[in-house]
C-alpha cells in the first residue's frame, strides 16, 4: 500500500495539538501508521476519526489487555505505540465517549509522563555538568605526579578535537535538541499543572512552521552524523587503528632511527601482544585537514637476561625494545602550526619525567623543538614545522633524536 511521509509540525508533548493534527490528516484520507522522527500514513483515513494519545503505563510497553477491553467496549481501538511515551487510540464512532470525562484524571495520566520527563532531564543535566566539569578539571587541575605542568598548552589540541566534523555536528544537534526539549517540557508541565487543578489544558500551540523546520533540521543533521560515524568506522577498519602494512601515508619508521636490528613482538615472544602495536590512526579536524598518528614498537631479537621488555636496555637486564609515537599534521592556517605542534608535544610528555627543551635550527624548517629526559635520556620528544605542516615525535630508546633530524624532517620536506 502506498505510504505518505510527513514531517510532524507539532511538539510531541503538545498532546491536543498532535491529536488534532492527526484528525486533520484523517480528514484528508490519511491514517497514521507510525509516528517517530516523521509521520508515516496510509491512504485509509476516514474523515471524522478521533485520535487520542494515552501515556504508556510502562515506557514503550504495549497497552494492557484489560485496558484494550475497556476501551473497545466504549468504541475506542488501539492503533500503535508512539515512541516510548504514548499509545494511540482512535474511534470512528461519533457517539463514543471521550476517553477522559474529567480534567483531573487526565492530569493523573499525564503525571507519569511528566515525572519520567523530569527524571530524564535531571539525569541529562547532571551528565552535561559532569562532562563540563571533567574538561575543566583536566585543563585546570594538575596531577601531583606532574613535574612540569603546562595544561594551557593542551588547549589547541582540545580545539582540534572539538573541530572534528562529528563533534561539530553533534554539538549543535545536542544544543538544538536540548532547546526543543526544554520548550516541550514546559508545555507538558503547564498542561499537567492545569489539569491537576481541574482546569482545561492551556490552548495548544498547534502545528507550526517553526517546529516543522526544527524537525527538518534535526533530521538533516542526523543523516550526515550517521554517515560520518559509519565512514569513520569503515576508514579505521576497526577502532584500534590501521595496521602499518595497510597504511599509505608517509611516516618515520622505527628502523630509520635504530642501529640495532628490530623484530615485532610476535616474532620474539611467539604470541600476539596484549595491546595492538604498530598501527596508524587517521583523524580529521577542520583545523587540521591532514592529521594522523602512528605508533610503533620494536624488539631486539637478541635475548635479554629476563624475559621482559623495556625501552631501555637497563644494563642489559631486559630485552631492548624502543618505541616511536608520532603525529603528523597539516593545519588550516600557518599561524596554527607552532601552537599545534607545542600542544601535541605537551600531549606526548610523560607526567613524571622532567624534560629539558631546546630549540635548534634546521635548514628548510620554521622550527625544531627537541626535548629530552633529564638524567637517563630514555624519553625524547621532537616537534618540527614548516608552513602549515608539523610533525611531533615521542621516542623511547637508546638513539639521540638530534642525530636523526634528517629522517624526522623528511616527512615534512618531502
Amino acid at each position, binding site marked *: 500500500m502506498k505510504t505518505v511521509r510527513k514531517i510532524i509540525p507539532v511538539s510531541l508533548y503538545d498532546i491536543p495539538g498532535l491529536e488534532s493534527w492527526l484528525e486533520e490528516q484523517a480528514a484528508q484520507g490519511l491514517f497514521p501508521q507510525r509516528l517517530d522522527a516523521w509521520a508515516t500514513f496510509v491512504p485509509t483515513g476516514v474523515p471524522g476519526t478521533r485520535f*487520542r494519545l*494515552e501515556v504508556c*503505563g510502562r515506557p514503550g510497553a504495549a497497552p494492557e*489487555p*484489560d*485496558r*484494550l*477491553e*475497556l*476501551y473497545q*467496549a*466504549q468504541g*475506542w481501538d488501539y492503533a500503535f505505540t508512539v515512541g516510548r511515551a504514548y499509545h494511540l487510540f482512535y474511534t470512528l464512532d461519533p457517539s463514543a*465517549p*471521550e*476517553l*477522559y*470525562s*474529567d480534567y*483531573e*484524571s*487526565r492530569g*493523573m*495520566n499525564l503525571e507519569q509522563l511528566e515525572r519520567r520527563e523530569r527524571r530524564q532531564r535531571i539525569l541529562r543535566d547532571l551528565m552535561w555538568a559532569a562532562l563540563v566539569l571533567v574538561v575543566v578539571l583536566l585543563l585546570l587541575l594538575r596531577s601531583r605526579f606532574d613535574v612540569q605542568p603546562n595544561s594551557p598548552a593542551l588547549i589547541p589540541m582540545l580545539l582540534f578535537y572539538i573541530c572534528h566534523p562529528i563533534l561539530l555536528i553533534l554539538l549543535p544537534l545536542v544544543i538544538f535538541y536540548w532547546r526543543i526539549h526544554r520548550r516541550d517540557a514546559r508545555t507538558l508541565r503547564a498542561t499537567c499543572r492545569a489539569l491537576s487543578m*481541574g482546569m482545561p489544558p492551556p490552548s495548544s500551540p498547534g502545528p507550526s512552521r517553526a517546529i516543522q523546520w526544527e524537525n527538518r533540521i534535526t533530521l538533516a543533521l542526523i543523516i550526515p552524523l550517521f554517515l560520518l560515524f559509519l565512514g569513520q568506522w569503515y576508514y579505521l577498519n576497526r577502532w584500534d587503528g590501521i595496521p602499518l602494512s595497510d597504511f599509505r601515508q608517509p611516516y618515520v619508521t622505527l628502523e630509520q632511527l635504530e642501529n640495532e636490528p628490530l623484530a615485532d613482538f610476535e616474532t620474539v615472544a611467539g604470541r600476539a601482544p596484549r595491546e595492538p602495536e604498530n598501527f596508524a590512526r587517521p583523524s580529521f579536524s577542520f583545523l587540521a585537514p591532514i592529521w594522523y598518528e602512528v605508533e610503533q614498537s620494536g624488539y631486539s631479537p637478541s635475548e635479554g637476561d629476563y624475559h621482559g621488555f623495556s625501552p631501555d636496555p637497563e644494563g642489559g637486564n631486559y630485552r631492548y625494545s624502543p618505541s616511536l609515537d608520532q603525529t603528523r599534521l597539516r593545519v588550516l592556517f600557518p599561524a596554527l602550526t607552532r601552537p599545534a605542534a607545542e600542544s601535541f608535544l605537551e600531549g606526548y610528555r610523560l607526567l613524571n619525567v622532567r624534560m629539558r627543551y631546546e630549540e635548534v635550527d634546521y635548514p628548510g624548517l620554521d622550527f625544531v623543538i627537541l626535548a629530552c629526559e633529564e638524567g637517563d635520556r630514555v624519553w625524547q620528544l621532537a616537534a618540527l614545522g614548516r608552513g602549515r605542516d608539523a610533525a611531533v615525535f615521542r621516542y623511547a630508546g637508546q638513539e639521540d633524536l638530534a642525530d636523526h633530524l634528517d629522517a624526522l624532517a623528511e616527512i615534512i620536506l618531502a
Partner: protein
Amino acid sequence: MGREKGPLTEPMYYVLMSFLRRDMCGTEITEFVDRKTRGRVNLGPGTLYTLLARFLDEGLIKETQVDGRKRTYRITPKGRAAFQEELDRLRACAADGEEEFQ
C-alpha cells in the same frame, strides 16, 4: 485511616462507591456509575482506567480475579475508610450549605 491525598473527585467518589456492595470489573463500574447518576456522570474509559490504577496504587482496592482480558476488583478496608471520610466531608459540606441557604 482513609486516603492521604486529599478529597476524592466526583468520578473517584462514584468509582469507589461502585465497590461497596460487591466486586466489580471495568464495564460493570461504568454501567453502575451511569445508572446511579442517571447519566449525569459519564465515565470515560481513560478516566476509569487511570482511577483504577491510582486506587490499586494507593491500596484502596485490590484485584480479585483475572478472567482473560477482564479484571475484577474489590474494595479494601482502607478504601472503605477513604469512602467514609469523603462521605462525611460531603455531608458536612451539604449541611453547611443548607444552613446558610435557608
